[in-house]
């Protein structure tokens, strides 16, 4: 008997969960149900830089596990013929600080992590320390369509629509995977999910081949070159739901980035964008039995990835697939009445 799984949400977490479930769970028909699809998801606007970020109290051991699994997955994609289609880029660059900082946990995951030398720092007046490392970047704009193609090829179904409550899906699905991101407050009443507002420019500057990430005085100015444009950012405003670019933020970002890389002053702006990182005290990745009797439903929650959706997505998707398998075996023991 074919078991029906519904994945709610079509951002990077939703689509990767859907693909992992198809690959790892036998005998299922997967449907992705979402209000928004690429290019209108949060993942589409993000630069997609692999680096654990804005994860609050998520246990370090989980961040490491999910992050490293995602890193290995992206590395495999990068070395394969699909790197360009999947939007995976190898990117080196500079992390700049005004005070020495402890080496990050991910230092041993990325390639060639090292401290900046005096010679390096001469390029960046005002900064006294930092790191140089080679990361992977996965562009949502290319990755999501690539995942979707994979998903559909494996028989996945897609439905556009807004879900107001998970239990309304109980009649049609055996397991629901909840990847609703920032919508968690509305959908499941989880008000611990709060936006961390990020504003960026996308500019045309093809001569920029490396990233810059400067953190100081509560600011985080960054420059990430992607396939076809360069992301200039950013902001991290907790609790701010405003999706329109704010002129004061635009100005601060522009100045902050142009100070780092003077040649940016003359570049052409393509557009501005605002995304709401779905921040939570901890990533929620767990099973829950919801509803009773005929409207009972096994749910696997997979949301609240903050600024690390792309960074953790594959590790989380693998775990979600395992939890779906668990939920399905449980259901076999307790069939619905």
């Amino acid at each position, binding site marked *: 008997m074919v078991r029906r799984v519904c994945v709610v949400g079509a951002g990077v977490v939703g689509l990767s969960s859907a693909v992992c479930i198809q690959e790892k769970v036998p005998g299922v028909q997967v449907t992705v149900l979402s209000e928004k699809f690429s290019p209108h998801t949060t993942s589409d606007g993000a630069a997609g830089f692999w680096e654990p970020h804005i994860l609050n109290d998520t246990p370090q051991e989980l961040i490491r596990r999910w992050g490293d699994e995602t890193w290995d997955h992206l590395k495999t994609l990068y*070395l*394969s*013929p*699909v*790197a*360009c*289609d999947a*939007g*995976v*880029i*190898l*990117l*080196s660059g500079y992390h700049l600080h005004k005070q020495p900082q402890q080496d990050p946990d991910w230092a041993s995951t990325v*390639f*060639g992590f*090292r401290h900046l*030398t005096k*010679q*390096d720092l001469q*390029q960046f007046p005002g900064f006294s320390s930092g790191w*140089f490392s*080679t990361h992977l970047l996965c562009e949502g704009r290319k990755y999501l369509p690539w995942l979707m193609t994979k998903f559909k090829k494996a028989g996945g179904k897609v439905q556009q629509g807004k879900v107001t409550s998970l239990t309304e899906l109980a009649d049609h699905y055996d397991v629901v995977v909840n990847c609703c991101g920032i919508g968690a407050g509305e959908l499941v009443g989880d008000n611990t999910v709060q936006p961390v507002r990020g504003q960026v420019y996308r500019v045309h*500057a*093809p*001569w*920029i*081949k*490396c990233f810059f990430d400067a953190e100081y005085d509560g600011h985080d100015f960054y420059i990430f*070159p*992607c*396939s*076809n444009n360069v992301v200039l950012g950013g902001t991290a405003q907790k609790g701010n739901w405003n999706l329109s670019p704010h002129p004061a933020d635009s100005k601060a970002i522009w100045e902050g980035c142009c100070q780092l890389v*003077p*040649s940016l*002053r*003359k570049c052409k702006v393509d557009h501005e964008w605002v995304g709401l990182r779905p921040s939570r005290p901890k990533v929620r990745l767990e099973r829950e039995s919801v509803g009773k009797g005929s409207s009972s439903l096994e749910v696997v929650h997979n949301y609240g990835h903050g600024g690390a959706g792309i960074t953790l997505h594959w590790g989380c998707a693998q775990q979600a697939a395992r939890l779906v398998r668990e939920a399905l075996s449980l259901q076999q023991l307790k069939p619905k009445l």
Partner: protein
Amino acid sequence: MMKVVVVGGGVIGLSSALCVKERCPRADVTVVAAEFTPNTTGDGAAGIWQPQLWNVTQQELKWLQWTFDHLSRLYQTEFSHRIGLFCQSGYNVFDKEVPDPPWKDIVLGFRHLTEDEVKKFPGYSYGWFNTTLMLECRSYLPWLTQRLKEKGVKFEQRKIASLSEVCSDYDVVINCCGLSARKMLNDQEVKPGRGQIVRVHAPWVKHFLLTHNLDTATYNSPYIIPGINAVALGGLNQVGDWDEGWREEDEKKIWDGAIQMIPALKGAQVLAKWTGLRPVRERIRLERDTVKDTPVIHNYGHGGYGVTYHWGCALQAASLAAKAMDDIAAKASSTRVHKSRY
């Protein structure tokens, strides 16, 4: 007023002209060349700042440092990208452990590859990572030309068969003729190092990758070098081959080599194809000579490293030219002979 002619309009010629004019502002300088941008050898080159791997003399090391310093200063400006100048990191990979290059402290952040990194390059077991500067002559040469014109330097498009053609009209000749030195001066040490480059649209590649097969000549192994708007795929250095035409079997070699290193390059859109002849010589010839009683400063034979050496060599050439001009002036005042060309 001294009349100086610079023979050759490539990156060596134009930078030499600029250095001479900056050093001797009152000199009357003319650049004479058969080809100007966008038809010089440098225009087609990828433009990576990277010298020969080893075997660098102390003097060459100085020229290299001067060039890198000069480009670093230009890089800090707002217009750097408009003159084709940008920064890029990348990989040099080998199939065995090799000594460090003598220029490792000139480039930025030079280090060996970690074991994890080497695994990205199947078939190679050792390598370097560093950050360097890139200079695209297609943008740089027009900018040099503009600066030269602003300083009153004249340009003449003309093919010269022999230096003696210009010796009678000028006080000092700076000879930046590149590969033409073979015919013009009968310098048998100058040979063409034939290369083909396929330029593709692959803006997602952000590092250079140079593979090395030490049994063959340098640059005779696949390389991938992103430019501002296109990625250059190459990997041939056929020394002694004068053919400027396009060869399909060489193109296939280039594609096979590139795809082996980065499989996702398969199917990339081709934007341009180019064949160039590097002016290869065992050593750069940068010295003073005399032809028909006229001092000639030779500055040619930079092989695949024209961009890499250009400014340091231009400064040296200008210094030699200034000395030659001083010698002429000294001789003139001591013998009090007024020649018609003063």
